[in-house]
């Protein structure tokens, strides 16, 4: 079996998931992790799919494109390299130490560069982004931008310094930055 990544995007309408997964099923595909959401009225799909070795990626992509053309979806299929055991490892820092997880919220007046500057600072500190979503808020007065992240940082990282620099960056960008430990109750 081989693993492929399927991404699809198009103006939202009913039947998109059924259309894409129908073609995948016809090709003997088995759905693994996936995430799908609506972005600005467009439906965005990201799926990991296990397919039999005798199914060429190109043929699958062509069949998908033809099968969902009437849904207005553009589809891309790419082979995915195996990342090895621990595929759900959210550390990503290469360290064997237990990382800590943090929630970061950033919001303020919309302006270019918020996501880049925040994530560049995180990367500089070796923090790994494991979840990120952004929303443009159509406030009556002025558009606002909301950036929400979940990050992991290595056990030896200096979180205090990271928070200090994030706060300073927020002041420069004119946005609020809040960092808190991701202490969701785990049953």
């Amino acid at each position, binding site marked *: 079996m081989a693993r492929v990544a399927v991404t699809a995007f198009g103006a939202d309408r009913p039947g998109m998931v059924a259309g894409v997964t129908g073609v995948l099923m016809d090709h003997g595909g088995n759905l693994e992790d996936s995430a799908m959401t609506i972005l*600005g*009225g467009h439906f965005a799909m990201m799926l990991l799919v296990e397919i039999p070795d005798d199914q060429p990626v190109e043929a699958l992509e062509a069949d998908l494109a033809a099968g969902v053309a009437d849904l207005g979806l553009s589809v891309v299929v790419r082979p995915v390299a195996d990342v090895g055991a621990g595929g759900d490892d959210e550390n990503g820092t290469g360290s064997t130490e237990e990382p800590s997880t943090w929630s970061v919220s950033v919001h303020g007046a919309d302006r270019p560069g918020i996501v880049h500057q925040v994530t560049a600072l995180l990367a500089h500190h070796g923090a790994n982004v494991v979840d990120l*979503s952004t*929303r443009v808020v159509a406030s009556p*007065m002025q558009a*606002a931008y909301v950036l929400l992240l979940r990050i992991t940082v290595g056990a030896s990282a200096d979180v205090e310094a990271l928070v200090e620099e994030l706060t300073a960056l927020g002041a420069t960008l004119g946005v*609020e930055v809040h960092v808190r430990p991701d202490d969701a109750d785990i049953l």
Partner: protein
Amino acid sequence: MIRPVLFLPHPVLGRPCERVDVIDDVARALAADLLDTMRASAHSVGVAAPQIGVSLRAFCLDVSGHPKARSSHGEVVLLNPELVEATAAPAEIGREGCMSVPDLTGDVARVPSMVLRGLTPEGEERELEMDAFEARAAQHELDHLDGLLFLDRLVSAERVFRRRSYR
């Protein structure tokens, strides 16, 4: 007086509020404005002073008739409100919105019951036991006084939702 509600990204919403030092006519006018502003908005269950541009620790709430409410003290307006006791029970996740973030809602974990203490506009101390939706509303309003929005408390980054139909 009904006051205009401020929206994200107004800087007052991100600023911790000062305590109300003196219970005088100014503080009583603020309390009245909070209530007037809440009553003027059909779906509002609470308004905090920073939402009407006043960086002082005061809010009002009223969850009467809300289907998720258990405790309900009717219209409550408190100056210098504090959470004095939170139950040890695990936090409960619920969907929250905010007049200052008109476009979005999100899932937030709150303690399910608590004791809230503060001063009435007449300067009397009041202690209220709250649970369920009223406790959630009070914690949401308390956060405003610390410059925090529900967006800063989401259970995870993807648990934020558009309130209106998609554009």
